[in-house]
Structures are given as C-alpha cells and as structure tokens.
C-alpha cells in the first residue's frame, strides 16, 4: 500500500495537517505532491507539482487530498481533514491528536477556473489528432478562417483545442472513432472532426450527439448526400429532431421553428453542413452544383412539437419508439407556406394542402418527388377534432393531389413541361406522390392557420430517401 497526498502551502488546512502527514510518512510508503511551494511541507521530501500535471491526472479537486494506492490502482481517497476518514483510509490510528477532528480543505489549483482550460489542453491535448494550425500574431483569426475556406460564408467560432476538448465532453464516443465516410471525397470522419466543425457552427457540447447522428444519417447510399450536393436543384439536408432531447437542448418547435433565433436549431444543421463542406469537400461551385441553392443550406434543423400533435412523432413512422431520441434527415428545398384561414372541415383543409403539394417543383411533374408537410398547430386542430389519423390524412392528400393524365401530359395547358403520356392515359389518375413519399411533421407557432410544404428531390433509390437514426451517444 502506498499513500499519496496533494497539498498547497496557501491552504491553511494543508498547513494544519503537516503533523498527520509526518506520521503517515513514517508508517507507510508515502509521497506528497505540493502545488505551490516546492519546499512545503518541509522534511517530507515534497514533490514539486507546480505544473499541476500529477494533480490534473489524479483529478484532484480539493487539498489536502489523500489517496490510497494498491497494486498501482487507487483504492480510496479522502479530501479535507477528517481524522476518522484519514485513519480508516491509511490504517494508521492516533493521527495528530492535537488537531481538531475535522476541517474543510481548499480548492485544488488544478481546477482553478482561470487555469483549467489551459491545463486541459496541456494534459489532454494529445487526445486530439487534427493538424494544428498556428496563426501569426498579426493574423485576425476570423479572417484567417475565411481565407482558408473553412467557413460557410458566416463567421464561425474558432476551433481551439480547449473548445474542441469541451465539445467532446458532449459524447461518450472516443475522439478517434469513425462516424461515417463523408462524400463527395469519401473521407473517413472521426468524432473529433465532427466536434471541430460543431465548435465552428456554434454548437454547445450537448448538441454533439445530435450532430453525430445527423452525419451518420446523411452519409450513406440511402440518403445519398453526394447526389443532394451535386444536383442543380436547390435541396439540402433538413434535420428533424424527435424525443425528450429536443426539450433538454431547448430546441424550437414553436414560433419561428424553421427560422432564426434558436441556438440549437441554428447550429445543429449548420454543423452538419460544415462537416460536409470541410471533411467531405462538398463546396458550392465544386461538387455542389445547385443552380440557386436555398437559405436552408446554411443548415436547417428543427424539433417536432410532439406535445401538442394529434399524431405520433415523425420518427415513429420509421420504427423508433415514442420517447426515444432520433434525427430524421430529408433532402428538401426551402419551406413554403400554405395559407388556409377558412377551412374548418378536414376535407376542405386537405384539399387546400393537396393543392399546395401539387405545385411542388411543377404542378405537371408527378410521381417524381417526396415532400415534407409541416402541419401547424391551428391546422392540426382541424384534423384532431375530426379524428383524422396521420395515415388517413396522407392517403387523402395523395388522392387529392393526383390529376388526370390529360392534365399533366406534355403540352397540356399550353405548357411544354409535363409527363410523356400516351393519349390513352388522358383520363387515368396520375398521383403526384407515390406511397411513402409524404412525410408529416407537427411544428410551428400556436397562432396562424398555416402549414408549410418542403419539396424534396429525386425520390427513391434513384435519388435520396428520408433516413431516420436514433441518437445514442
């Protein structure tokens, strides 16, 4: 057995317990580390830990701390002075009878808030494998980041070692664990690289598991982020978050849910896009060939309002149990509003929504795209009061948004665009959406008889399919 003590001269309790330390030094193998004065405590051959490395690695929070070490492993620790605890830990009785029975200690210098970040970088920095980029004294860090092409066009939080280490506290996953192979460059991406980009996006550490799940969700052949980038169409990955984590992170599912102003909403989607840009190499004008893009490509994430929804959460449509945390990613364009302030009957409102859905990308292009329908609370109320289920609504919307072939064939309505249908198909009903192509989410502010449509991209295995992933660690 070995006893290891941590002290500092600046702590009155440490000064008080020197007689007890002297007794322990005689009774057992004994080492004392001193955090400030290398000569303290005199006569006990203190080891200088003014660099605080031993204190840091032993996770000392207060001084004095006494550790018992057996076979190289710590088997017990006490902090502050408490005669009974010290005697029980050390097995030495009759410790310093002249002292009071107990006395609280002081904070360890290794957890001094002014030094903790610096110490962490010094002693844990080796966990980080990323290349270090040293800035010149005269270099403005924000301008340096723009100049290196790391930004999406807005300023980012500079990814220092301290910030990235703090970000990694948000996950139990190891920094060097590979999360995904990121297109278009097909680069294996570590948890650390995701964390760096999450710092830049402005995420808090607790958002990191959501970002990790979102990266996994887009980087596969099903979601096909390569195609979503490369297309001339203006789509990007849209992240919908379900489960109790939404509330824990303070995500917005209410007023302005698809807009600015909520840190988690704004930075989670942005972090995902920064990973695609910086790790995957997906940059506008290179593999990203969007004719217009859309403002949501800076990052678009929002939470579903599960509490007020008439229906089960979106993630349950993909087999994730209610109450579990999940991200669902959808390749979508910018949101557009459907206004219907008069319908109080579900059939009437469904007809309005179907008319809006019919216009996705072009009213005569059928069967080609998915869409996400974000039902606002005031519209959802109409369906709730009428007892419409989500599958019932989706089925009716598919029926109502279909059109006879003669209406959507090329040239019909004086419009060249359309489907190449034979004349015989003029009366055949052509659906706008295939089964499984409409995804219904409940979100938005409590006032406003509106819903929102987000048009998708080339659907199915030929394009991008919606992907849902549980958020784990």
């Amino acid at each position, binding site marked *: 057995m070995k006893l290891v003590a941590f002290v500092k001269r600046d702590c009155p309790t440490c000064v008080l317990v020197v007689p007890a330390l002297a007794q322990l030094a005689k009774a057992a193998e004994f080492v004392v580390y001193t955090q400030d004065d290398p000569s303290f405590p005199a006569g006990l051959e203190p080891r200088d830990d003014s660099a605080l490395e031993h204190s840091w690695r032993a996770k000392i929070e207060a001084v004095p701390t006494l550790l018992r070490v057996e076979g190289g492993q710590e088997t017990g620790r006490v902090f502050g002075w408490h005669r009974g605890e010290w005697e029980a830990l050390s097995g030495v009785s009759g410790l310093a009878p002249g002292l009071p029975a107990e006395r609280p200690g002081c904070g360890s210098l290794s957890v001094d808030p002014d030094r903790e970040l610096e110490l962490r*970088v010094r002693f844990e920095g080796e966990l*980080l494998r*990323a*290349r*270090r*980029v*040293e*800035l010149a*004294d005269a270099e403005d*860090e924000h301008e*340096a*980041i723009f100049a290196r092409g*790391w930004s999406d066009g807005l300023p980012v939080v*500079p*990814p*220092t*070692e*301290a910030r*990235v280490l703090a970000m990694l506290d948000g996950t139990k996953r190891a920094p060097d664990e590979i999360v995904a192979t*990121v297109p*278009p*460059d097909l*680069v294996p*991406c570590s948890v*650390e*690289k995701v964390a*760096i*980009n999450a710092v*830049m996006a402005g995420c808090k550490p607790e958002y990191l598991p959501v970002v990790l799940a979102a990266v996994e969700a887009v980087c596969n*052949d099903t979601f*096909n982020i*390569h*195609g979503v980038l*490369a*297309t001339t169409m203006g789509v990007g990955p849209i992240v919908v978050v379900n489960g109790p984590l939404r509330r824990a992170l303070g995500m917005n599912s209410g007023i302005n849910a698809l807009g600015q102003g909520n840190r988690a909403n704004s930075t989670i989607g942005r972090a995902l896009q*920064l990973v695609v840009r*910086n*790790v*995957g*190499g997906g940059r506008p004008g290179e593999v990203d060939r969007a004719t217009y893009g859309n403002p949501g490509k800076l990052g678009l994430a929002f939470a579903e309002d599960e509490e007020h929804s008439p229906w089960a959460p979106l993630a349950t449509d993909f087999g994730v149990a209610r109450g579990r945390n999940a991200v669902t990613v959808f390749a979508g364009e910018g949101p557009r509003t459907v206004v219907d302030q008069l319908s109080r009957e579900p059939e009437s409102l469904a007809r309005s929504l179907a008319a809006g859905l019919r216009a996705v990308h072009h009213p005569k292009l059928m069967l080609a795209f998915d869409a996400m329908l974000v039902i606002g609370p005031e519209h959802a109320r109409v369906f709730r009061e009428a007892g419409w289920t989500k599958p019932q609504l989706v089925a009716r919307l598919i029926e109502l948004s279909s059109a006879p072939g003669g209406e959507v064939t090329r040239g019909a309505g004086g419009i060249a665009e359309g489907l190449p249908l034979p004349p015989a198909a003029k009366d055949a009903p052509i659906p706008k959406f295939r089964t499984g192509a409409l995804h219904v989410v409940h979100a938005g502010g409590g006032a406003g008889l509106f819903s929102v449509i987000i048009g998708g991209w*080339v659907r199915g*295995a*030929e*394009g*991008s399919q919606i992907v849902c992933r549980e958020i784990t660690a």
Partner: protein
Amino acid sequence: MSRILLDPTSERRLAIRPRAARIDSLEGRTIGLLDISKPRGSVFLDRVEARLSERGAAVLRFAKPTFTKPAPVDLRHEIATRCDAVIEALAD
C-alpha cells in the same frame, strides 16, 4: 486565448497524377460512351456513336444505374479495362 486552431478539414493532400496519354487516332480504337442516365442522353450519344464508327472506332455503350450517384466502381473498372478512351454524356 490560444492562437492555435484545429484543422476542420479532411487534411487530404491531393494526388497529382499525369493524364493518360491522348490517343492519336480513332482507327481501330475502342471508345466507351457513358450515359449518366439522364433523359435524352442517349440522343446525343447515338449521334456520337455514329460519327465515331464512321472514323473507324469500335464503340461500347455503358450507362450509370442513376445519374444521382457516382458510377459504381465495377462499371468504372470495366470501362477502364475495355476502352481506350471514354466520353461521358450529361443531358437534359
């Protein structure tokens, strides 16, 4: 604060590879025509095939399964091993 930043990129160094030698004649060569599977790409490639044949080239036609995804590695390998050159058609 620290003036050291962590690199957010893949840290890849781009490999610079020499271009394959250009073919100096079409006579007796095999030219691959790759349709990315967008509408009407075949219209363009049919014309190209006719013109190449007139000049004595053998033509092999290939198609990606979908224009939205990179060509599968097996398809790229097949083109590389069977053809002296390849022409890829975009469309719309």
